[in-house]
């Protein structure tokens, strides 16, 4: 099939101003940069800016500022007033959407069309949605026994990953603020810039000082925040390994936690599925954001009798994907976020080949500089292969087969994770039967990778606990008299 050729359509980076160096955003103002380290554009390895490594004293100051803001202002403010601040933030995010999209693409490496159409608008939508909850919490059905009014915990420590930097910030900050908590947030080491730009949004919105504090740094900063005695609740999105260490570190304390962790989702295609739609869903499921998505459909379970047809149509479709400059509006896949992640993807794929999987990628020329990995399909994968059990977090699809719905369920559930799953079939009763039997927090039927602020997101088993989004997501940020649970929101 001839490939459409597109002229370059680069988005301009002139829309955003990046400082040479950034400090932390504490108590409404930026600190002077100190102990800086560079943040790179993963698409070409150029340095975008220097950011500061927060030590325990910086974390102390941020937590203290959040405590003062909670006790002095935010915790006492009426829900209606809190809500109006959130509406302001949502509006400013919309007004400055282009800036955020460009900055996110530069810092993360994901295509501009994704930051423009997904990350930034959904981030704004999260603030809009939660703004409306702020003065309606007593109607949310969160009370233990009918009469208690939900109360905020106080200071929330939030640690977010690099795959959706601004969107994860919105998932964390919007519900925390709507429920009356104050926040200390640590963005990922490799993607701090949109969080620092968000600090400016807080200033423009006139948000009282200390309600949102942002400290940058690596895992040490995150650990200092999680273990800080002044933090009442922790919200973490990241790896299952770190999630377990957080669960251990708060054991025996009164700290609450919600953990959004890894996944190894099965995307299940039955022989009666509309194959072309399913192929689009498979592609979106694993190649969206270069597969660096915790709920990515990384295991394709295809019914045996349509395996060859599905795989051949999938390969044909992959041949039309455009991999390259993330700032180009026509790019479908961008860069891998970091050298370390690229190495992890590379070594896992090599392990898959060594264990007997067959590796295929479409012909595509990758840029010489930057961190790149081609869209990859591994066929002949069996359940015990590492590429079928471990989260790769990259543009790599492992293909397995099944014969019966029962076998599909058994294979889909044969994982320590339980975040998401996909089902493709035209038969309604089978969709509902499958949805009942899949042990996963989100089931996408005849669609995949859909996100909405009203829709709770979160996992079963070792994918963590708690939900984010929707009415259920509020639960983690409030306390009621009978609440004694670690992962309060379920």
């Amino acid at each position: 099939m001839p490939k459409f050729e597109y002229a370059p359509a680069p988005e301009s980076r002139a829309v955003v101003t990046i400082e040479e160096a950034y400090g932390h955003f504490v108590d409404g103002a930026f600190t002077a940069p100190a102990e800086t380290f560079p943040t790179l554009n993963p698409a070409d390895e150029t340095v975008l800016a220097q950011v500061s490594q927060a030590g325990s004293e910086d974390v102390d100051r941020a937590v203290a500022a959040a405590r003062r803001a909670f006790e002095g202002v935010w915790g006492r403010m009426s829900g209606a007033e809190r809500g109006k601040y959130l509406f302001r933030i949502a509006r400013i995010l919309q007004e400055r959407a282009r800036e955020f999209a460009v900055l996110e693409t530069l810092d993360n490496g994901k295509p501009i069309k994704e930051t423009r159409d997904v990350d930034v608008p959904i981030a704004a939508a999260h603030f809009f949605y939660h703004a409306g909850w702020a003065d309606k919490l007593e109607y949310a059905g969160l009370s233990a026994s009918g009469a208690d009014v939900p109360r905020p915990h106080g200071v929330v420590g939030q640690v977010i990953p690099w795959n959706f930097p601004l969107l994860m910030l919105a998932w964390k900050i919007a519900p925390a603020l709507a429920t009356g908590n104050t926040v200390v947030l640590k963005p990922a080491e490799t993607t701090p810039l949109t969080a620092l730009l968000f600090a400016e949004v807080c200033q423009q919105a006139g948000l009282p000082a200390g309600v949102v504090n942002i400290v940058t740094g690596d895992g040490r900063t995150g650990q200092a925040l999680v273990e800080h005695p002044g933090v009442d609740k922790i919200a973490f999105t990241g790896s299952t390994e770190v999630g377990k260490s957080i669960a251990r570190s708060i054991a025996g304390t009164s700290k609450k936690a919600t953990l959004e962790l890894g996944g190894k989702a099965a995307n299940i295609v039955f022989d009666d599925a509309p194959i072309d739609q399913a192929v689009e869903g498979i592609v979106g499921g694993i190649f969206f954001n270069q597969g660096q998505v915790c709920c990515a459909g990384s295991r394709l379970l295809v019914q045996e009798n349509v395996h060859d047809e599905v795989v051949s149509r999938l390969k044909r479709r992959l041949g039309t994907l455009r991999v390259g400059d993330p700032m180009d509006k026509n790019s479908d896949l961008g860069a891998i976020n970091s050298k370390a992640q690229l190495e992890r993807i590379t070594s896992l794929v090599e392990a898959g080949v060594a264990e007997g999987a067959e590796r295929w990628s479409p012909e595509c020329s990758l840029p010489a500089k930057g961190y790149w990995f081609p869209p990859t399909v591994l066929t002949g994968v069996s359940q015990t292969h590492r590429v079928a059990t471990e989260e790769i977090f990259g543009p790599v699809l492992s293909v397995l087969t099944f014969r019966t719905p029962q076998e599909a369920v058994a294979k889909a559930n044969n994982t320590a994770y339980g975040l998401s799953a996909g089902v493709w079939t035209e038969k309604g009763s089978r969709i509902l039967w499958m949805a009942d039997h899949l042990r996963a927090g989100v089931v996408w039927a005849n669609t995949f990778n859909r996100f909405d602020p009203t829709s709770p997101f979160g996992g079963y088993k070792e994918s963590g606990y708690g939900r984010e989004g929707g009415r259920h997501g509020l639960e983690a940020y409030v306390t009621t008299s009978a609440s004694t649970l670690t992962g309060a929101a379920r």
Partner: protein
Amino acid sequence: MSRLDVRKTYKLYIGGAFPRSESGRSYEVVSASGEFLANASMGSRKDVRDAVVAARGAFGKWSAATAYNRGQVLYRVAEVLEGRRAQFVEEVAAGEGLSARAAGATVDAAIDRVVWYAGWTDKIAQVLGNLNPVAGPFFNVSAPEPTGVVGVLAPQASSLLGLVSVVAPVIATGNTAVVVSSADRPLPAVTFGEVLATSDVPGGVVNIVTARTAEVATWLAAHRDVNAIDLTGVAGAEGVDWAALEAEAAGNLKRVHRPTLRDGVPVEPDWDADPGLGRLRAFVETKTVWHPKGL
């Protein structure tokens, strides 16, 4: 001529059967005033593991049973409890040192609590679930599902009312349970097992191990096929460090229901208070299902 009464052998309740501990051990159970009551089986690590296997085996059918059916079964438990009221009054009075009248009130409250939870089985999804109005042409619904196998450290002091107050909410939502009874007051738990065995509760849905809490709690908290743990029974349990149990539970990210704390120290909850939704909410997972709308 007086008749010698026939005493009961108090055993474990695992997978619908009443085995002795595989360890062959037993321990003396005495009344509140120190008189010998019975020799109870002293459950071991292996007994706990057997109980987890039974609970996992029972999970598929129990979680898939209709909510209406689970409600009927729980109501049947209340009926059978009522029929054995006198026996429970005697055991609770002896173990907890209560007057017959006070023990009677406790047993009545326990029966009523089971009835309360029986009524929740087919309402909880309506209270905790909802449609989500997503910004697009999709049907989107969130509903609670059972978490899986739940380990329960039953309260040490309240040997019947406390016990049913922690077990009923776990099974009402479709979970299965491995229960470690009160260490010093295990007899009502064993008799409660007999009630369950005769109440249409499928074998393995509730498994009861009488044991020294400190000996077996660690194995339950660390077990990789247990999905959640209720630490209520650490209050007043000898030699139990609940922080260490919660840390063990992190190994497979169990959902942890922490003990009630007063000044940082675990205390037994007030079992006469309105139980609220807390325990029902604690052992469910929210599942959200999306489907496109279109012609």
